[in-house]
């Protein structure tokens, strides 16, 4: 397919761009296969350079022959274009609509993007499972790398290499895979060097209504327990939901079959409930009535902060089991690709100092989100403004980033990265020139040949010039476990992350709060 077919009017002059907090700009609008560009043709500067894939929804309005297109972006920005000429306006609108909803991944921008920078370190090879394994293989010999999923045959959403107990052979893993949702047999997520306790994650056990059991599964997870020790299974569903899952062939670990494990249910919401929460939150932020009661009531009704509190609480509980109780844990919900990953990755932020460094956090995203098979393509297909709701869209990753921000706010000196780093990751998860967040799992990424055909986000981020933007000047390595407060009073709204959209505020606030104080902080730290 040629993009040209979709672009009936590639260029319109005298278009006026309205953006919050910027003066209106008149210029020439150009459409390319992947970008919407507005240039005022002064000093050759582009006023706007927007990826079509960042567009979440558009509205058209006409007054006489003057058309207006309101573009709502996945990163919550709202932009308005005044286009003279009804036909031009309609053409532009239909092109944008088509180009922002391309079906084929291989038509996406990352397959066309050619970097303008020299690649010093290829991000596709920055975080190899073998290297990650080496980090703790010196401390323990109880684990091994398994290549059982080399062809993605055992578990389509797992990476080719996973870490499993040494005493369990590949044959057993294959059997366990048939007993777990999506073939997601229990694998190592985190090894706590301090006391040798581990976090494992998996999909739900397929016990069904007749209480099916799998000896290999029991053996696998028991292999992670020290003699005489008990472990905890954290189920991210309520007991009720977990019980209902049995009717659909799913279920949970029965005490009788897992006597050494104690099950805890910590309910975390999923899917459309989260998506609706985001939609309501962004709507509340966009509310122009300036009525405080209404704002608080809408904020409350969105339940966004409730989800934040739920997720953080579950992660803290997991970390508490590991560090304070000295017990290993297994975490799963239904598929083990959403709330499970929120909990395992946040628990690591709490427990492991390395994951609070830039490099370590990147490794965490790579390990616990990308390779662990969080379906980014599905979850991030649409954002807060989209009208056509699909049931698999959900801001799972954004909630995770928000939770990280909450911990960062409570421990402002313990993270090597700053808030901008989190915002950048959010933006790239939804629309990017890089291939990192394309596809739903390693298997799909392999088939798309992303490593050969696209650039990794990490290749760009890890350049010294870019890193400086994301570095927290207050950082001081802190080797302790950090316990955040989950009281509602301690969990404010992440204004800059979630309220980017607000016309009156965010632009000014961000420059005011971030830029000024960061430069001031730097002035103090680097006299």
């Amino acid at each position, binding site marked *: 397919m040629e993009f040209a077919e979709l672009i009936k009017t590639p260029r319109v002059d005298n278009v006026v761009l309205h953006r919050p907090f910027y003066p209106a700009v008149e210029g020439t609008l150009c459409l390319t296969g992947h970008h919407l560009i507005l240039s005022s043709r002064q000093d050759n500067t582009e006023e706007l350079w927007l990826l079509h894939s960042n567009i979440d929804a558009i509205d058209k309005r006409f007054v006489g022959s003057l058309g207006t297109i309101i573009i709502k972006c996945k990163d919550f920005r709202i932009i308005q274009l005044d286009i003279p000429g009804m036909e031009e306006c309609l053409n532009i609108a239909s092109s944008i609509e088509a180009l922002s909803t391309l079906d084929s991944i291989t038509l996406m921008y990352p397959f066309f993007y050619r970097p303008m920078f020299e690649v010093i370190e290829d991000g596709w090879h920055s975080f190899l499972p073998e290297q990650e394994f080496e980090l703790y293989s010196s401390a323990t010999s109880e684990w091994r790398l398994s290549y059982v999923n080399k062809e993605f045959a055992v578990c389509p959403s797992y990476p080719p290499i996973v870490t499993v107990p040494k005493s369990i052979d590949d044959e057993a893993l294959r059997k366990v895979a048939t007993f777990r949702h999506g073939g997601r047999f229990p694998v190592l997520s985190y090894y706590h060097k301090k006391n040798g306790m581990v976090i494992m994650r998996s999909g739900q056990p397929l016990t069904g209504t007749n209480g099916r059991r799998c000896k290999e599964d029991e053996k696998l997870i028991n292999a992670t327990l020290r003699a005489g020790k008990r472990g905890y299974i954290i189920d991210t569903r309520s007991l009720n939901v977990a019980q209902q899952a049995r009717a659909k062939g799913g279920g949970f670990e029965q005490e009788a079959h897992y006597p050494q494990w104690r099950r805890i249910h910590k309910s975390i919401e999923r899917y459309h409930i989260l998506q609706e929460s985001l939609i309501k939150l962004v709507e509340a*932020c966009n509310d122009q009535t300036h009525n405080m009661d209404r704002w608080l009531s809408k904020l409350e009704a969105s339940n966004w902060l409730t989800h934040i509190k739920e997720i953080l609480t579950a992660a803290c509980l997991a*970390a*508490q089991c590991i560090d304070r109780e000295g017990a290993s844990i297994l975490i799963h919900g239904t598929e083990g690709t959403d709330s499970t990953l929120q909990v395992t990755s946040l628990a690591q932020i709490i427990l492991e100092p390395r994951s609070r460094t830039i490099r370590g956090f990147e490794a965490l995203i790579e390990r616990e989100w990308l390779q662990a098979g969080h379906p980014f393509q599905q979850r991030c297909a649409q954002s807060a403004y989209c009208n056509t709701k699909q049931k698999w869209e959900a801001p799972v990753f954004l909630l995770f980033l928000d939770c990280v921000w909450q911990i960062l706010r*409570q421990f402002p000196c313990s993270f090597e990265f700053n808030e901008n780093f989190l915002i950048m990751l959010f933006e790239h998860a939804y629309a990017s020139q890089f291939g990192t967040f394309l596809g739903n799992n390693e298997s799909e990424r392999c088939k798309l040949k992303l490593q050969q055909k696209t650039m990794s986000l990490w290749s760009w981020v890890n350049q010294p010039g870019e890193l400086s933007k994301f570095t927290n000047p207050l950082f001081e390595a802190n080797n302790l476990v950090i316990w955040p*407060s989950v*009281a509602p009073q301690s969990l404010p709204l992440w204004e800059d992350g979630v309220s980017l959209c607000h016309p009156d505020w965010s632009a000014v606030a961000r420059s*005011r709060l971030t830029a000024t104080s960061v430069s001031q902080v730097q002035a103090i730290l680097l006299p």
Partner: protein
Amino acid sequence: MEHIRTPKVENVRLVDRVSPKKAALGTLYLTATHVIFVENSPDTRKETWILHSQISTIEKQATTATGCPLLIRCKNFQIIQLIIPQERDCHDVYISLIRLARPVKYEELYCFSFNPMLDKEEREQGWVLIDLSEEYKRMGLPNHHWQLSDVNRDYRASICRSSQPLSGFSARCLEDEQMLQAIRKANPGSDFVYVVDTRPKLNAMANRAAGKGYENEDNYSNIKFQFIGIENIHVMRNSLQKMLEVCELKSPSMSDFLWGLENSGWLRHIKAIMDAGIFIAKAVSEEGASVLVHCSDGWDRTAQVCSVASLLLDPHYRTLKGFMVLIEKDWISFGHKFNHRYGNLDGDPKEISPVIDQFIECVWQLMEQFPCAFEFNERFLIHIQHHIYSCQFGNFLCNSQKERRELKIQERTYSLWAHLWKNRADYLNPLFRADHSQTQGTLHLPTAPCNFMYKFWSGMYNRFEKGMQPRQSVTDYLMAVKEETQQLEEELEALEERLEKIQKVQLNCTKVKSKQSEPSKHSGFSTSDNSIANTPQDYSGNTKSFPSRSPSQGDEDSALILTQDNLKSSDPDLSANSDQESGVEDLSCRSPSGGEHAPSEDSGKDRDSDEAVFLTA
């Protein structure tokens, strides 16, 4: 002393509000000025001091098997729960405190017995630190347009204040009309004056029936009349009450909290005050118009609004000393009724209202928006709030200057301003830079700032729940870095001087004796020692399957404890009283070169606290 029925009760338990099963056993003392609880534990002998004047309410709860609970709520938002073994003792303590917390004579207040060991001269100097006539001079007054009044420096336009006119439905006062005309004329830049009535219109109209009311635009030439609806003191009192109830909830859900916050209306009121301040600041700075502000009496809402506008307009008020001047000018000298509003003496409870608390919160909300614009930090605001209620210093006593003069406050008590000034290092905002563009001129906010600009101030209302506060303080961190840098620079200077001397000696002597300078002892700067060793809270919730043998929560011993030393230095913030038990050490008491301690997470005490959180099945 005659009000103290029992000076000492033993075997009293101080309940940890976060984890009620953890209570400290100790002895309770009642003194003329304080309630003191001393823990029995020989390791700590922790002391909790509460000023009688901070006590807001005392509640005797139903006796249980363990004893008789007594709940003390303080005006600085501290809440203390004691369990006294004998009902009789509890009753005696209760009756004594009821009386002690409601003194009837000014002479009973703490400031008349508080002695910080300063001599007479130092005390007198303290009282002249903030001098209002100096302030008017700074504003360029009096000049040929103005006699002493209230004005802004950079603009001809001014902010004036008054109480409501006694207009009723038709009354006029020619002199009043002429005075407004004079205010307009004093500002050649504009041909009208804004008259801002800070009451809701309905309230102002109701006042007409009582022969009061508001200016009739027909009678005054060239005024623009504007209502800005700020509710009255009774609404505000109830609103705070409701918000504090929300803060007191035990492990509330997010919905409980947000719903309660909304229902209290507190942030709506804060926003109303800010909106009024912003309106006035814009009128003065953008339209160049003078503004006359009034409410009913002119000492509550008017004071709030004028001081918010002043802060927005004049960078001087955003400095440490300037802020003291602002409070001295807009609040103390203009007759804000401190005694009535903050209930220092026993009086009509309907007169009590958190008027200045709201202003202080507005300042904090602004500091959040403009982190580099204020010379002072959050702690400064918290300490001022504390002392408005503590009655430890004479500044905020009485209802007017006249009363203060009659009581000879300046001869008999000490000034808070001198105390704060002496400790100003604690109150500085490291991000402040006087030459920064943001710190100069007017602070610009959108005309109608969005709602999420206003946040719940947990640093104030939950400040005794240390576990809820951020565990690392950027302010303290940066101040420590600054201090360290300064020390190093001084050291460098000294070494350079010495080097110079040595070189001179070398020149003079043929025989050179090498003299080694001692290696620097600075071991680098680190905050990672115990500054953030904290402990988990209760994350298990009500999960039945979770084997928590007790519903124990985090072992944050919320810093209830004022040590005697702290108290003597009259430091209301408990920052220096870092919570050793939970390992949450406050950065402020850390030496700048704190790298000497090996990072240790598992201090013995910390382990104890683990036990409380997780118990064996």
